[in-house]
């Protein structure tokens, strides 16, 4: 293994010249190889060609560096496989001193999954819960002040959860408009869940109940996205689309942009709803996460109502387009 004939050296040199001409990477390899050759081998005891159990002759690992994979960065050339500092008798592969363990004296019997979880203290299918008050805010409109909220929560396992969602708005002591949903959420794709459940509308006008079916998840580029379709009695249909995106200014100053759109299949004058796209909202909220769980914010929301409002509640001065300042609190636990 050690003795290199002049013929081999010349052949190697010839190869190297060709390679070096071909690529600069090869030059690095050649350089590495030459450096290894230059190591003061003579001072080291010649390792006898012991066959290891693997049937491989004792190999010169130092010479192998830079061969596998990537051309080694130049620092790798300083590898010091400093055998010379160790007892030469121990420097090359020795037989394995491994001793197989005795068989167990006591075999563990079979256990149910529940027993297993209890004994191991390991439950990879446990239920967790989260409640998020995404927006809880005071709203300043051209007409005065209102309080609005958007809350959601879930409880359940990795792939099946019970979801709760609610949003609404109160002004001048009355509940203007609010809804609550209860949904079974089931994971169908890495970032997407389907949701099936019910929605109940509260507030001014008669209450409405809907069956809900939708999808919710995280779209590419980190957009939270949810689309839900609703079907109610008297052939009522509705659609809600929500999307939000967090922009990190710093690790704690975060701008949330959100967009929401509601559409209805037929008008509901008793609730002041016209058929078609009923309303759209776009909001920007700058929050500071004092803790991740607790963040006050200020923001602005643009609120656009579509269609003619023929409701009995229509006082005539409600604007179709409203810019609102908001200040509130985001929290979760």
């Amino acid at each position: 293994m050690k003795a290199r004939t002049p013929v081999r050296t010349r052949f190697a040199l010839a190869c190297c010249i060709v390679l070096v001409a071909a690529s600069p990477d090869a030059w690095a390899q050649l350089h590495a190889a030459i450096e290894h050759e230059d190591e003061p081998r003579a001072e080291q005891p010649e390792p006898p060609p012991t066959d290891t159990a693997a049937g491989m002759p004792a190999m010169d690992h130092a010479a192998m560096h830079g061969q596998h994979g990537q051309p080694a960065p130049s620092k790798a050339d300083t590898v010091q496989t400093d055998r010379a500092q160790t007892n030469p008798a121990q420097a090359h592969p020795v037989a394995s001193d491994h001793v197989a363990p005795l068989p167990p004296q006591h075999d563990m019997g079979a256990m149910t999954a529940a027993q297993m979880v209890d004994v191991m203290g390991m439950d990879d299918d446990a239920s967790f819960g989260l409640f998020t008050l995404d927006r809880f805010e005071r709203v300043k409109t051209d007409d005065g002040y209102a309080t609005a909220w958007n809350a959601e929560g879930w409880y359940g396992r990795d792939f099946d959860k019970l979801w709760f969602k609610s949003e609404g708005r109160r002004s001048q002591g009355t509940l203007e408009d609010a809804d609550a949903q209860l949904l079974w959420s089931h994971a169908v794709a890495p970032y997407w869940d389907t949701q099936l459940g019910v929605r109940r509308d509260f507030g001014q006008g008669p209450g409405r109940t809907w069956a809900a079916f939708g999808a919710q998840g995280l779209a590419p580029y980190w957009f939270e996205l949810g689309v839900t379709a609703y079907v109610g009695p008297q052939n009522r249909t509705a659609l809600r689309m929500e999307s939000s995106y967090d922009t990190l200014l710093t690790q704690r100053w975060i701008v949330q942009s959100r967009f929401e759109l509601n559409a209805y299949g037929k008008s509901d004058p008793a609730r002041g709803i016209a058929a078609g796209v009923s309303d759209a909202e776009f909001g920007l909220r700058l929050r500071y996460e004092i803790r991740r769980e607790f963040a006050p914010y200020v923001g602005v929301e643009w609120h656009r109502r579509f269609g003619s409002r023929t409701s009995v509640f229509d006082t005539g001065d409600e604007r179709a387009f409203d810019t609102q300042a908001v200040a509130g609190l985001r929290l979760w636990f």
Partner: protein
Amino acid sequence: MNLFPTGAPSAFSRRRFMQGLALGGVAAGLGWRGPAIAQSPPRRDVLDGTQFDLEIGAATVNFTGAPRSATVVNGQLPAPLLRWRQGDTVTLRVRNTLRERSSIHWHGIVLPADMDGVPGLSFMGIAPGESYTYRFAVNQAGTYWYHSHSRFQEQIGLYGPIVIEPRGGERHAAERDYVVLLSDWTDADPEHIYATLKRHGDYYNFAKPTALDFLRDASDTGIARALADRRMWNQMRMNPSDLADVSGHVYTYLMNGCAPAANWSGLFARGDKVRLRFVNGSSMSFFDVRIPGLKLRVIAHDGQDVEPVSVDEFRLGTAETCDVIVEPDADRAYAIFAQAMDRSGYACGTLTPRPGLKADVPPLDARVLLSMGDMMGSMEGASMSGMDHGSMSGMDHSAMKGMDHAAMMHAPAAVTHARAEFGPGVDMRVDTPRTNLDDPGVGLRDNGRRVLTYADLHSIAAPISADTQRTVELHLTGHMERYIWSFNGQKFSDAQPLHLRHGERVRIVLVNDTMMTHPIHLHGMWSELEAPDGSFQVRKHTVVVQPAQKISYRVSADALGRWAYHCHLLYHMEAGMFREVVVA
């Protein structure tokens, strides 16, 4: 559910939180605050011989200024150092005084399955008030450790070192011999940390790319390039800063139970050879270890002697051990500096010729983001869930900043994925993983220092398995947003045990289909890592698999019984990255 859970510090108390208390640990917690005691480090017993009595119990500790309850052995954190001799049969009577079930697992020790200490597989655990007697022959030598295998007890203090003296004496003489056990202490309740990760997997990451970073990059390199750098990551909903699920935000990193301010110290005389036995006894942390001014001569890894190799720095995965010899030749103090892989904190101590000296602690290295190679392996292509393959061909390769050649292997290895990997519990698959071992890993590439890699480690002993009879391929899988971790897309609770025939020699191939670095630990049998060409490299008990990497190791199934096989990141294990291996 608590609105203001304990543990996470506010910004103003952050420094003390990171640095910890000068007088921390169990002693402080017990109120021994006399000036004489204040000078002495927390008590650390060395138990020697063949008969051991260990008592698992609760103790109050104080590392950050807030008293907390820890799970300890014989009142100590870390647990006492156990010194055994190769060839002895040891008897360890372990009594549990906790109010909950407990256990001790002897990490890396080859022993009968019923002595391995994994509740549910080896035995029933140790019930409150009860004892269990472990007895086994010690046929190996080196540096190991022991820890609880019950729930989160390891996180809150139940870990300690083991040193086994070789039958014929140490291969390398040294005048001084110190164990340096690294760990991650948290004031928070680990149950709360786990629940938080299940709610928001990125909760503890305070190094995410921001809009300000983007503006800076755009002005430095142009807006097109800054956009290109981010495009793939954002399209795939992957975070390049996700290096540690739990960070210095809630961790105070300890060296032998001492926070940085407490400054654990080891004495030397000029010219001494000092053996340092590093043990990563943390729950979730990788440490990058160096001693500025000294070369580290690595002589053993995971207790197994290796051909010595001198380096400036090494990364120690969770549960790995590494023995080095250093020769401090100046009359000054040297800092032992172990920074967390995500650079969110560090453990440190001092090697000093005289008591009381403290070396300058180097600054934390800059945070480094994962490279494209970490996500895609060989860069020949990768499939991410929901990703548009067509869009990749149009990717501007030249525009990828931070692309790291060390992270890429030229010969891609094609792989096939298990069916479950295409389900909702897996967020990423790597089709062309890299196979090279000569990559020190993210944050250590081209840092100007000579950093140890697995390619540098060569066992002195011959492999146990000369060859293999069959190959078992497992993929490390997960979902960061849902915080699910698994093998082949199946959590422990969904998976059947992996069956090995007694006496067979198996090649296990691991493909990391995630962007995290996983330390994979097989109980009962050695993992004999192979080089990319299939030749034997090094014998390990815990094998670190880097993102998008494919590695293989030989396993001689000579240990009858039921064994645990899992990721040694505690919260990954609890979340399902665990398999039972049955040898029958």
